[in-house]
């Protein structure tokens, strides 16, 4: 009855008219189709939300990726800075410790009534059977053989070999070392000798002299090497054998020979020089 073309034209006209009527009605009565809208929302909204979320996620991923790259770079930079800060802190700690040691040395130096020279320990004896150190001052700095070497804690040893810029110091704990000493309290005199195992033996102290554990042993100044009154060590053991002449006394040196870093060399002391209290 109708051709296909006529039907299509009729359909288009009807659609346009219907659209115009709905539009007209909708403009005249807003909210007339709200029910339809409300019915559509629950169906479309989740999809919209999902799409939105995906877009948001992908956008954030992209942005975070770039952030991560920059964060990684920043992390590397911060790590480097942290390393440098750690190094600086360590250097500061070392300087602080060195400063403390130097202050101690300086304070101690003021107590000695002699000309002294500070030196740094640069090496130790290669053999465990002998105890000596090498210091970075020598003949050109005024050092000579038999000069006493000290730290604030006590006697360290004596200079035995001197070259132009270096010297070897025989430590108090070496078996070939000897210091003429006194027990501070009882004034009992004897010779402090090393026994190579990190301790000393106080020899030739007569039985009649009173020596107790914990007594302080100081240099007597009679050996002509060490000024009088320098702290040598503490008595740790006393053995009195009946029938003997001398006591067997063990002394623990005040100086820690494992931790020696800086020492003081007494380069000149008057014959009657003493350490001030």
């Amino acid at each position, binding site marked *: 009855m109708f051709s296909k073309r006529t039907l299509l034209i009729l359909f288009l006209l009807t659609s346009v008219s219907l659209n115009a009527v709905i539009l007209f009605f909708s403009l005249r009565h807003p909210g007339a189709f709200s029910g339809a809208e409300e019915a559509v929302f629950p169906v479309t909204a989740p999809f919209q939300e999902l799409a939105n979320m995906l877009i948001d996620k992908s956008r954030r991923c992209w942005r975070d990726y770039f952030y991560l790259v920059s964060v990684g770079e920043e992390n590397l930079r911060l790590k480097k800075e942290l390393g440098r800060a750690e190094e600086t802190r360590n250097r500061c700690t070392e300087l602080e410790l060195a400063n403390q040691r130097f202050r101690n040395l300086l304070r101690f130096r003021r107590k000695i009534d002699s000309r002294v020279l500070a030196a740094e320990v*640069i*090496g*130790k*004896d*290669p*053999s*465990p*059977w*002998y*105890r*000596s150190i*090498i210091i970075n001052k020598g003949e050109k700095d005024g050092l000579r053989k038999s000069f006493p070497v000290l730290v604030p804690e006590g006697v360290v040893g004596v200079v*035995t*070999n001197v070259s132009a810029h270096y010297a*070897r110091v*025989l*430590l108090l704990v*070496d*078996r*070939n070392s000897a210091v003429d000493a006194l027990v501070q309290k009882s004034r009992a005199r004897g010779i402090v*000798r*090393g*026994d*190579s*195992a*990190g*301790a000393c*033996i106080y020899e030739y102290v007569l039985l009649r002299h009173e020596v107790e554990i914990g007594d302080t042993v100081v240099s007597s100044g009679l050996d002509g090497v060490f000024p009088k009154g320098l702290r040598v060590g503490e008595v740790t053991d006393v053995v009195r054998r009946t029938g003997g002449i001398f006591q067997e006394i063990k002394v623990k040196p005040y100086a820690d020979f*494992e931790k020696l870093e800086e020492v003081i060399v007494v380069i000149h002391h008057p014959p009657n020089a003493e350490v001030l209290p």
Partner: protein
Amino acid sequence: MNCLFHVFFAVLLSGVQVAVIPAFFSDTGMYDLFIPYIFFLAFSRPFLEGLAAGCGMGLLSDSLSAAPFGLYITAYLWFFFLIRWGLTVLQINSRMFLPPVMILGVLGEGAVFLADALPGGRSGGLHHVLRIFAWQLFWGGLTGPFVFTAVSVFHRKWKRGGGNLLFPERVH
């Protein structure tokens, strides 16, 4: 050239012994690193070269240590002669012999030092002596062969690069 090689190793080993090792083994000390070197001299160098280098190293060690002068030279030379004699009598070419030889060297040197310490009665007591010996023998047996191998390998490379100017090579 070999002279330079020995001087280089003498300075290196003495530096390690005086400055590096005391930082880690301050109480007991490590074994004498020159012992593997003396073994190297006796084992693979001509007699005169080994003797001269051994004396030089003994002199160096004697100067660095508070030991009575000549003790290190004595220890090194006895060890050198003992190894040279051992090479003529025994076939100690196998690497298996290295740890016992190093231990023998450490023991020998320790005995020389102890011979000096014991008469004075101030060796620090038996406990102290045994502790030092045990420690040194352990490290000597464990690392001595490696020091010897390292010196040998380094010398081979040195020879390839330089030459032998002062002493003629021993013909095997």
